């Protein structure tokens, strides 16, 4: 079969052959293959542990951000109660940003959970294929002539080899994605530590200018809506002019 899947098949098969050919004597192939299988199982375990670690780190950030959302919401209310619409607006802007970040984190945590589940499933499948290979090998040896047995066992080894190559690819993809998230989480922590967390632009990396502007526009509308809602709740919403976006309240007494 030519095309994309054909190319995939060819490359993977070449890889399996390379893997199995490393043993010099054909009878060694089995032992070598089995040894590689066991090594790979260990790697998969490590990979799963890595995914879990990354997930925990992201979950910690989620908790922090959730706390921040609550805090900023309270601050916005306090500011508005004191007649400081400018401060309330700032708090709400930050809150919106924190909420956007939270959404990203939610998606990432869900993705990591999916990866974790997928790897656990792959590990179990590989484990049972290896078991199957072991018992099959004995049955084949008992039932076939030496030459036939060699062929049959090679076929089985290729089947397991393909599963190994596949688990290897699943692992690699999970690790790559996890590293991307880790880098982002690390960058966020650094920004937080540097006090730059509130700067929307600083965290907008990876977005182009248009995206950023669009995001600002939508979050601006969100802030206006929420400000109006808060005013309603606090009963400070007077004449319509007071609800105009961008209009700052005359300076009153600063909140204590």
């Amino acid at each position, binding site marked *: 079969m030519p095309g994309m899947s054909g190319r995939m*098949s060819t490359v993977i098969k070449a890889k399996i052959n390379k893997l199995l050919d490393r043993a010099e004597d054909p009878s060694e192939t089995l032992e070598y293959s089995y040894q590689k299988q066991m090594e790979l199982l260990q790697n998969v375990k490590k990979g799963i542990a890595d995914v879990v670690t990354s997930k925990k780190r992201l979950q910690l950030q989620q908790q922090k951000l959730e706390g921040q959302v609550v805090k900023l919401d309270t601050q916005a209310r306090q500011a508005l109660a004191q007649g400081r619409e400018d401060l309330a607006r700032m708090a709400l802007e930050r809150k919106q940003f924190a909420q956007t970040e939270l959404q990203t984190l939610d998606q990432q945590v869900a993705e990591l959970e999916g990866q974790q589940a997928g790897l656990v499933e792959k590990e179990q499948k590989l484990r049972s294929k290896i078991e199957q290979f072991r018992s099959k090998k004995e049955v084949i040896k008992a039932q076939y002539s030496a030459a036939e047995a060699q062929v049959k066992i090679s076929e089985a080894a290729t089947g397991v080899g393909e599963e190994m190559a596949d688990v290897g*690819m699943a692992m690699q993809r999970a690790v790559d994605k996890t590293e991307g998230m880790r880098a982002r989480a690390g960058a966020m922590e650094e920004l937080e530590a540097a006090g730059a967390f509130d700067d929307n632009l600083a965290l907008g990396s990876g977005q182009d200018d248009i995206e950023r502007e669009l995001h600002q526009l939508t979050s601006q509308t969100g802030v206006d809506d929420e400000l109006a809602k808060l005013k309603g709740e606090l009963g400070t919403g007077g004449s319509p002019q007071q609800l105009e976006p961008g209009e700052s309240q005359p300076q009153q007494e600063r909140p204590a």
Partner: protein
Amino acid sequence: MIVRIATEDQYRLPDDDAERLNDLDNQAVAAVEAGDEDRFHELFEQMLDLVRRDGEQLGDDELEESDVILPPPDVTFVEAAGEFTGEGLIPD
């Protein structure tokens, strides 16, 4: 015909589907070569659907070599393009 969806599972697919799969595969390649990302994803989804719908999953006790291996379901357009020009998806 045994088909593997990389990083997912192996399926036993009726031989009648081989032609359809091959056709979609060739169209997907053409889409990649034409730089048409949307069309590529659309065709690739159809390939995955075909295999998942018509195929029967191989048991854990079956040690079979696949006749055809499809890229992972989350393959990106860039990766698919690399499959024809670069080293492809499979790490050493």
